[in-house]
């Protein structure tokens, strides 16, 4: 089937759409890092297909979509995906909730990196509300993990 070959691509597109969909301000603050989660899953599952290179490209698209200086999100994304790709064998053996904690720490690192880079370029101030997505990402990881594993097994992606 043709869809098989595009599943990873399509899941990343869906994640990008979810990342930029307009939301009410409250839900906006709590929006999980869909792109990071989906890329993270594929990196853990198939590190030979998705790793730093894909993360770099998706980060660039995210930069254009969000209107940040080109390179900021790709930098943060690359660092996080590198950590996952370098440790995928260990992380795969963790339980889903342990993985969620690791993903939460990475999401915090991601947001801090984006903030630091932005801070270097413009004088933005740090508010703790910027870190709310860390918790929602952590909570949503197990469900996303199960969903994407189901998808991966269904379409036998390798």
């Amino acid at each position, binding site marked *: 089937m043709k869809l098989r070959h595009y599943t990873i691509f399509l899941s990343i597109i869906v994640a990008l759409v979810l990342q*930029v969909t*307009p939301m009410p301000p409250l839900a906006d603050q709590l929006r999980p890092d869909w792109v990071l989660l989906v890329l993270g899953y594929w990196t853990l599952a198939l590190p*030979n297909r998705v790793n*730093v290179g894909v993360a770099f490209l998706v980060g660039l698209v995210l930069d254009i979509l969000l209107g*940040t*200086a*080109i390179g900021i999100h790709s930098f943060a994304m690359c660092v996080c995906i590198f950590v996952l790709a370098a440790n995928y064998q260990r992380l795969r053996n963790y339980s889903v909730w342990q993985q969620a904690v690791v993903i939460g720490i990475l999401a915090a690192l991601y947001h801090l990196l984006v903030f630091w880079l932005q801070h270097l370029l*413009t004088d933005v*101030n740090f508010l703790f509300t910027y870190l709310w997505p860390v918790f929602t990402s952590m909570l949503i990881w197990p469900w996303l993990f199960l969903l994407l594993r189901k998808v991966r097994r269904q379409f036998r992606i390798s």
Partner: protein
Amino acid sequence: MNTMFTRGPSLPHRTVLALCLSILLILVDHRLDGFAAVKVYLNSLVSPIQYLASLPGQMLSASANRLVSHQQLVAENARLTLQAARMQEKLQRFELLKSENDRLRTLLGSPVRPDAQIMVAELMAVDNNPFSHQIVIDKGAIHGVYESQSVLDDKGIVGQIMEVGTTTSRVLLIADITHAIPLRIARNNVRLVASGSGQLDELFVEHVPHSADIQVGDELVSSGLGNVFPEGYPAAKITSIVRDESRPFAQVRARPMAQLDRLKYLLLLWPSDAPVQPVFDGQGES
């Protein structure tokens, strides 16, 4: 498994390469502004994702439109008719004043102010980037939108066009922390610069001497200096003044006239000396 895995540079090498490339791109984009020319294409490239992302909201508002009750429509119609009548009356006076003003200006030998052209644009997306306030609108290069064009709503100045795509463009709001706008007080023509605070309902008015004639409630209009915003459009209202003599300047805050957190329809402005002319699609909305 896959033999591809061992090909190419190793993971750490790849990462270092990607990170160096990212830093290079940041520097080129931010410090040198090297992507200004290709940004149109980059924005057009990702606009399908933006259209997809704005789809749920559009569907919601479309279904909300269908479910409006008859009563609500009648009430709205009555309100709008009343508003139109009031506007019409104001417009008649405005026409009179305008012709009188033009006559006086010709008498004084100063140039007559030409009309600006206007196009209505709709909000497509609001960025969820917490560090900057930008919105995306549904008009782009094919409609004649150009960079640094001013964007208004029915109350006042909203911002300026930052990047243009083929069918969409990105607006930097006046409340963004990197934005500043030259203004004057409508009451006495004192010139000021208001910069964004990063919060949608506040602007900082910078470098105001303690002795400046400025009061809470003063209306600020664009001064036309800097050649970005045309002269005379309302922009903000002074909300607080702290005159602390131990500081070099008074601390003045203002609130934007436009309701930046509930934008829906926006006006794009083409002054007579605009580099591009607007392209209207079909309807006579000028």
